[in-house]
């Protein structure tokens, strides 16, 4: 393995993907990268922000960039991927997601009618508005990549990417995700408002931006994504970086202001994300900047802090320690 296995086609593809999304989502390159990272890490992402910040649009744009259309399920051919969107509501039932057995007149038998979960890219909108029952049904799919209906288990495609969104404002009839379920999401990112100039740009071009379907081109195929995911796994991870991750994870468990620290699964997810992030940033190795960049979106939602101040500062402190440790290391210090 060399330091530069990133073929030009790969990097070009990643670039076009980012550019493609950026056409629609203005002023949010970092967030776009996060979403792509989650995709390449074979994970799922949770977007949290006020309504109207562009969460749904982002998810849609991403899906459209790698699929031919909402229903173009033709992955065997290496074409686009399937994209489904579910609007979560309090009265949604698990079978609305999974699908259900219905009686086939011709076969005189119950056949399984697949629900919207049988897809590649799933946009789960306002996930916290659905009942826990529904939430857990979705999360099972996310974790196990399979769906159980009755006594049958249906295997999902190995490319299954969920973009969930939720509103931070407590509304009537919301069911906040419990910690165990939050843990399943590789990342949780917030959007925030865009800057003045970007907003001006958005208003000036709102027509074009609004027409997502027509302005977004498919730039990646199913196979491309699978290859890139494979590529991300091959990103080189220096032993010192691993050490720092261990220290960071351990640190969250022993920090006096953190009630619940990061789990080992969290650590593994962190590593996966780091690798994917490095790839997204056109690198084949992980550097300390990656830890700095990913600690918040990957780890923060896994921790329970004792107070607001700690929620703001504690993780950052731990990251600072590790970044400084790494910055001071010599070049040859391999464990």
């Amino acid at each position, binding site marked *: 393995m*060399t*330091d530069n296995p990133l073929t030009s086609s790969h990097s070009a593809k990643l670039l076009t993907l980012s550019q493609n999304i950026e056409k629609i989502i203005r002023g949010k390159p970092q967030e776009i990268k996060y979403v792509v990272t989650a995709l390449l890490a074979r994970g799922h992402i949770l977007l949290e922000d006020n309504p109207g910040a562009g969460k749904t649009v982002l998810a849609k744009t991403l899906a459209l960039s790698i699929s031919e259309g909402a229903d173009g399920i033709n992955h065997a051919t290496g074409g686009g991927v399937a994209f489904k969107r579910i609007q979560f509501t309090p009265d949604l039932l698990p079978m609305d997601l999974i699908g259900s057995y219905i009686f086939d007149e011709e076969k005189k038998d119950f056949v399984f009618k697949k629900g919207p979960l049988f897809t590649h890219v799933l946009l789960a909108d306002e996930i916290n508005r659905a009942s826990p029952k529904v939430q857990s049904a979705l999360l099972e799919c996310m974790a196990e990549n399979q769906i159980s209906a009755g006594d049958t288990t249906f295997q999902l495609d190995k490319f299954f990417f969920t973009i969930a969104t939720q509103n931070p404002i407590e509304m009537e009839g919301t069911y906040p995700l419990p910690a165990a379920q939050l843990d399943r999401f590789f990342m949780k990112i917030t959007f925030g408002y865009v800057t003045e100039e970007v907003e001006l740009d958005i208003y000036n071009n709102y027509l074009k931006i609004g027409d997502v379907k027509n302005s977004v081109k498919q730039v990646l195929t199913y196979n491309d994504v699978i290859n890139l995911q494979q590529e991300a796994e091959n990103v080189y991870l220096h032993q010192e970086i691993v050490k720092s991750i261990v220290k960071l994870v351990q640190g969250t468990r022993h920090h006096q202001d953190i009630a619940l620290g990061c789990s080992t699964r969290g650590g593994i997810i962190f590593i996966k994300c780091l690798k994917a992030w490095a790839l997204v940033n056109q690198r084949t190795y992980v550097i*300390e900047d990656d830890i700095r960049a990913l600690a918040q979106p990957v780890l923060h939602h896994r921790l329970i802090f004792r107070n607001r101040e700690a929620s703001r500062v504690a993780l950052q*402190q731990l990251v600072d320690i590790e970044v400084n440790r790494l*910055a001071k290391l010599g070049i*040859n210090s391999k464990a």
Partner: protein
Amino acid sequence: MIQQAIMRDRIMQLLIRWVFVVLPTVVIGYITLRFINFSYTAFTEGIPVQTLYFAAGLLLAYSLYFFRARWIVTFAGLWLAYWIAERIIVKLPGEFDVFYATAKFQLYSALFLFGWLFGFLLVRVKYSYIILFGVLAVTTLVAISNTIDISLTYMLLHLVPVVVYGLYMLFLSPLLTETLEMDLKKSGRLLLRFSLFLILVVLAFVFVERIFKKDLQAVEKELAARGAKENKEGSEKMDGEYDERFGLMEKRPDGKDDGYRLKDTMKINSKMSQSDRLMFCSKLNNYFPDGNPKPLYFVYHYLTKYDPVRETFIRDVAVPFFDEFNADPSELAMYHAKEDSSVIRNSLAKKKRVVVEAEVYLASSTWKHSLLAPASAFYCQTIPVEKDFQKTFISAYKIKSYASELNNAYFVYNPSSNPMLEAYQEERFEELRNVNGYRNVDSTFYSYYTELPSGPLYDSISKLSYTLTKNVTRPVDKVIAVRDHFLQRDEDGKRIFRYTLKPGGVDDPNIPNASMLDNFLFKTHAGYCTYYAGASLLMLRALGIPSRFTTGFATINRSDKNKGWYWFYASQAHAWTQVYFPGYGWLDFDMTIGNEEQQGAPRPDGTPPLPPPQPWLVLNAKAVSAPDLKRKRLDVSFTNIIYFDEAYQLNKSFERPIDASICRILYDKKDTTLSAIQPGDSVIVVSYKDEAKVILPPRRGVPIESQVAAFPVPIIADEIHIKPKEKTKKEDAVTKKNTTKEENGMTWQEILMLAGKITGTMILLIFLLPLFYLIYLTLRSRFTTNPKSKADSVYRSALYQFHMAGVERTNETPLDYARTKIDPVFHAGFEQFMHIYLRLKYGVGTFLPGDTDTISRFAGGFGPAVRKTKGFFTLAMNYFNILLASRYFTQSEKNEQENQLPL
């Protein structure tokens, strides 16, 4: 609401500053005041009360100025308060001692004002702690230097609080400029950092100590000697009788300074005269033909010149036929001698001349530099004090001096009741009647010794003397007439002149001036020796008889038990007149009359010290190597020897081993061990005449070198005296030229200079540390060949140099730092380098084409880029900013506590 919150916050800040700034300052103020109290007695109340005033001023000023009080207004208010308070105190009714109250008030208002100023400076002036540190350090040093019992440890220990305070403030000051938000954890960390810093300082100190080890040891030795000495003095001082006496003979009579110095002149007053402190003892080899001891007065100084301004006699340099022997026994090496033949020539005595030998044992260290000898000494040799007597006598020397047969203590004294002595006296006067006048005397000499200004004061004295001597012509008769004037009695048979220690109720330690003498001669008729000597001198000079004022010691023969031994107590300090008779030289005349009212109980003589063993060989040698401590051997080389009391200068240098197994080692007259000798030290090796040794007596006609070559090997030594280093000797020589204040070895100024040098070097070293680190990094990056290591060292060097250029990496990753902070400012291509560096660091580590070029381009380019942007001067100054540098090394700690930024 917001106003209140701000106010509350502000008050919190003030409280924090009280704890962190005001409290330490009060503590250091207390410590400094303690030192001042040790040295000065101006303060009457206890130290806590003083500190209270200081603290009150400090606290008030600090709080006021913290809330942005106007300084003009406050200072004016302060002055007004002071003025009003003073008015009130002055007007206070009766029973108050106004003077006392005012003085006390002023003292404490001064303290208060000091505190106030400190507070003002601390709040308003950015680097005020440097000023405070300076003030405190100087105060402490001054206070310390006044202490008698001083040692290096003492000095350092007392300076430590001030230094710690200075460092503490240095450390705290950057935090004070910002809002200082303190909690328990942070202050703990602060403490930790501060102690780390202290450790650094201690390390630097250890380093410096190693560099200056030799010098320091010299100081230590010197101080040890001094300390012991001064301790001894201190304990004797406890008797509380006459501490002022220590200044008596502090300075050497080398006559290089013609100014009037209080300490040069004999301070003879009641305290001195009543003291029974032993000053010295002497064995004087001067006997009558019948074997009875013939005592002589011991001379210390001559006061020859009349100073019309001060109306008194002072010492002088430009003396015609100067016959004072200029020798400092403490400067002579053991058994070494100094001889001055000019004294013989200048003594101007041809008739009745004898050479008198004497051994003088000094009891007090203040006599170290003085030469006490009967009449005109011309030879001085240092001799050791026998061991059992070293507690009583600190040093000893042998002298030879000139005396006249006519001169002896019995003669110079007033007519005593002893008829035999009066006969002697008459015989002496008869002899001197041969002198008719001063016609053939050198005119310069004559006019010098008879010089007296004119004026009503002197005219009356001169008139009196002419009246007294109108019937006689010969000088000696005139002298006797003057003496008789003091001895005359009134009708009731009572003496007109009285001896009193308190003439006129004023206890003046100085030589009385002309008006006082006039008063003494014509009104009070009461005084002690200096009055009699001074008055007779004025009278004799008025009569044209060359005479001088002599200070020294009256010699009293108390018992016949130890013939030739004389004991000198402080009460024997005396002043008398010497009169010149052509052909006979200077003769003593003592005009002081006895005290009829009071007779002191005679003091018994002590036990005379045993004579020290006679050496057969004294080597003025140099230690060639370090002593062999196991075999007790020492190799020395020498060219100067004293062999059977004869000094030789050898024409070549000899090297001989010394057997030191039965030897005493001394440094500055204090016992030490053989290990104290270092190669290159000058040593005096003494070997006694001893039955057990093989001693070759000197052979006539044989060259000394071949005799030395035949000396037994090894030479068995009985004493080795270590001389202070050559360097200090040289410095001494320099000071000798410039000033009259001299001491053996190092003076206080030198020690202070050394202390200053050491501190300076230490501070310099600390401030140079950042530069050293830069040099280390630069050299490392320059000379690393392995490309990976090179990238690494370039990275480190760059990080450090950018930091020292003032752009500090706070929380960023190095790449962010390069991108957001460095490149926009310096345009050094740091980011480009960082990409390569990070790939090498965290990647698999293969080089791509062009990497090495980029690295070396960056390595060569970032230094100039930094210099260009920041300017050489600013950059250079930054490297002396120890705080900036220390932040580079303590970065992670800082991140831990200071990161308050949201993500």
